[in-house]
């Protein structure tokens, strides 16, 4: 059965406008609708999460069943997924074994991945000086280095003017960095508003297909 796009667009526009109206109009029934629609969105978001995980499992199951390159890794993924589903699903997300799996598998791997990132960042900073040497790249790398040097004492040595509450590092973080960040935040917010309005007007329909 093929559902026409205008029906989906009507759903998005209708419920979106009602939710947006609940932000600015204080009417009891509108607030109730607002809350109800939001609750429905939470449910559907959870369903979408399950659908995504099911799709992930399906893809790797197919890959593990076949004899293509990387089928071993897909099998490892399927096995770990099933074990986690069984253990955590039966015992609960905060059970001992659930937390054991979380603390001894997920946390070490993610932390290690983040830890290995420092090498990549150091190497990238070294090449940035050579690749693109202009005013803005100099400002960028210079600010970063100054900020890093001002975060902690240099080999246990505090440098006056650099460290401290009124040091250069704090001054940079509180004035120009805030100014730039504020501009970025405002720009992001304005872009979010523009994109949302396009969806609520039906100009953008990312729900096709």
């Amino acid at each position, binding site marked *: 059965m093929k559902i026409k796009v205008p029906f989906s667009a009507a759903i998005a526009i209708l419920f979106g406008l009602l939710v947006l109206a609940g932000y600015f109009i204080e009417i009891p029934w509108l*607030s109730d609708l*607002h*809350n109800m629609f*939001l*609750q429905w*969105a*939470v449910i*559907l*978001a*959870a369903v979408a*999460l399950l659908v995504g995980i099911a799709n992930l499992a399906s893809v790797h199951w197919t890959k593990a069943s076949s004899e293509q390159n990387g089928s071993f890794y897909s099998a490892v993924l399927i096995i770990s997924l099933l074990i986690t589903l069984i253990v955590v699903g039966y015992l*609960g*997300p*905060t059970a001992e074994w*659930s*937390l054991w799996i*979380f*603390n001894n598998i*997920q*946390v070490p791997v*993610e*932390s290690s*991945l*983040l830890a*290995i990132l*420092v*090498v*990549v960042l*150091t*190497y990238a*900073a*070294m*090449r*940035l*000086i*050579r*690749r693109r*040497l202009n005013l803005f790249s100099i400002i960028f*790398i210079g600010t970063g*280095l100054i900020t*890093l*040097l001002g*975060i*902690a*004492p*240099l080999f*246990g040595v*505090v440098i006056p003017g650099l*460290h*401290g*509450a009124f040091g250069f590092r*704090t001054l940079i*973080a*509180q004035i120009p*960095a*805030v100014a730039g*960040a*504020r501009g*970025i*935040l405002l720009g992001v917010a304005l872009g979010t508003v523009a994109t949302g309005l396009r969806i609520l007007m039906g100009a953008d329909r990312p729900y096709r297909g």
Partner: protein
Amino acid sequence: MDEVRCPMCGKLNPEELDTCQYCQARLKPLNISSAPEEDAEITSSSASFNETPSQKKPPDQTPALPEWLQPDWLQSLRQGSGTDELGEIEPEDQLPDWSSQEVDPGDQETESAESSAPEDSSEKPDWLEGLRAANQAEPETPSEQDSESTYSEEMPEDEIPDWLQRIRARQSSDEPELPLEEPDAESAEFLAKLRMSPDADETDSSEQADAEEAQPGPDEEDSQVPDWLAEYAESGTESTPPELPDWLKSDELPAEPEDEEDSLAEFPSRMTPSQPPFTEPFLEEDIELESATELPAETPPDKPPFTEPVDEEEAEGEIADWLADLEIPAEQEEMTSLPVEDEEKTSFAFEAEPAEDQPDWLQDIEIKDGISPKEDEQDQDSELEVVAPFTLDEESADLIQEELPDWIKEIPATEAQTEAEPSEEAAGELEPAELPTWLESMRPIESVAPSAPASDELDQIVESSGPLAGLQGILPAEPEIAREMKSPVYTVKLQVSENQQSLASRLAEMVKSEGIAAPIPRAPTISSQAVVRITIFLILLVSVVWPLYTGDLGAPAPELSPEVLDAQLLINALPDGGNVLLAIDYQPAYSGEMNATTASLLDHLMIKGAYLTLVSTSTTGPAQAEQLVRYVNNQMGHQYRDTSQYANLGYIGGGLSGLRSFAQSPQQIMPYALNASTADESTVWIDGRLSNIQALSDFALTVVISDSPETARNWIEQVGPALEDTPLLLVVSAQAEPLVRPYYEGYPKQAKGLVVGLSGGVAYESSMPRPGIARRYWDAYSYGIPTAVFLILIGGLVNIVLAYLPTLKPGQGRAKR
């Protein structure tokens, strides 16, 4: 050998031939009249026109030249004599006696057949018309070839040959046309003798056809039979056979004066067109005429006339005396002499009579190849000697000689002799004309020479119906566009040359190679980039391991920043046992930093006895929250284990929508506590520590612990407005500080406190009486950060030096980046 110049192509031919061996034009015109005797006389006399005097040939076989073939001097002569008709012989007394008496029966029949043909003025040649008219009205000259007749009127009467005189006399008597089907007995005898040779009939018929072909003159009356021929016809029925001239008695043709030969040769040279015209139609006409006049069966219609080989010696011996009187220069004689070989001689005889009916002199004439279809018979037959029936007197010869252009005089006789030889097969085919050297030199270069016109397809079409049935080259009645033509079939095969094929194959290879991925060169096992990364890792590892291994290196703690102080003040301001909403929104990857940053703050809250409500917008949040509480419990010695101290509400789904929904109605979104050991304990909103919480604003403090600025912003945007007076405290990772600080630096502050990263945690921890895990990491942090900074600086400088070092050396280009 004597040669005759063809009137059409201008080439020299042996005198014995009746038709040109190159263009098949009639060398000796045919004379057609109602009287078969007269016709026989005419044809025989016309056939002997171009013959050398030494050649024997029937006197009535010389065809008359059309007017357009006549040279100017001949025309002028005739005009002076009052005759402008072709083939008219004026002085009949110049004709030899034999020509007026002896009539070839075969020729008579031929002439009768010709005369009985439909007298269509459009089809009959002019000379024939003239002959008939002359026969009917005035005594006119019967043959155009007989220039002597033109001259004869100017000649004194005593010099006019007897035969010509007789012809004139006969013409003046207004004799009717002789019926063709009543040959005279004597002429019949003469003709019968001529028919003694087996090929005489064929020869006669072919010669007759050639005569028709060679004389396409304007339409004239075809009943003008010259007097001398008419005389022959009459003599064939009434008079006795004329006395044979001496030359006919002998086997040899009488010798012709050279002057006469030269004068005779002038005709073909002057009037010869480039190509023999009217070859095919005349042949067809001849065929039709022959069929209409009931030619003998032995007569081959396609045989060209004037091609009978004649023995030159015999022909020369039988030339009449009147021809011998003509003083033809030796040069002209050579020019006019036909290229007759010893074995082959051409003859202008039309039809050979049976051997038993032919006179002796005629029987002696050797019929050579070209005419005779049988070589045996050809060998056996006596040569038909070609004899010019008309001879030029000395005066005429002189006139001709004077008017001959010099270039004709210069033509050596040898050229004519060396021209193409007639052959039996060539008699039936059109041989390419041989141009003389002087004409050959004038021939244009082939590259610029106009090419022979392409044969029109119309010429190939033979009409199949209508009055023009059987004719070729007829213009179609229908326009070409209406004719049904098969549509041309165009070949679909592409004509490609070898060079094009090679280029196309090369292009195909290039296109094919585009789709094939080039093999990537195998990277070395350990590249320079890997070496650098390993080096960096090891250096950083050492800088971190050493402080951790050695323990406290005494790195000074950072100063208490305002934002950390504000956070501390907020927690200090909490009432004891106050409800604190704790949002654990950081990933497990940041658990090391966030645990170190949050541990002291959480310890502070626990010291305050705050009821912690843990929520998270991340799926790992519930586990992370549990892990944090247990960590602090373990590190700080607290006992937060069940829902009486804290409630782990779990995961808030939906992202922004869930936050907004949680902010509006937290009980509906998070009704249960995950850390409840029993079902009753899970309903914390009903009979737990959260029963007096209706909205988020009922919480004493909201602490958002996040590793990303987006999560913190979401909390600020969605939950912040619902908090109202409830302070919001942000504990963020060092990476989130730049984008989160504006929420703290503004007025009114959206975030009342801010603890940033390990430095903030260390700073907060330093204000607490109990040390935490953050202080343990601080020493390694203080050594690792500057090490990394120095690595970046040194590595960058090295890269810059390596990049710009080639430019420092003279003579080298810019360094490659």
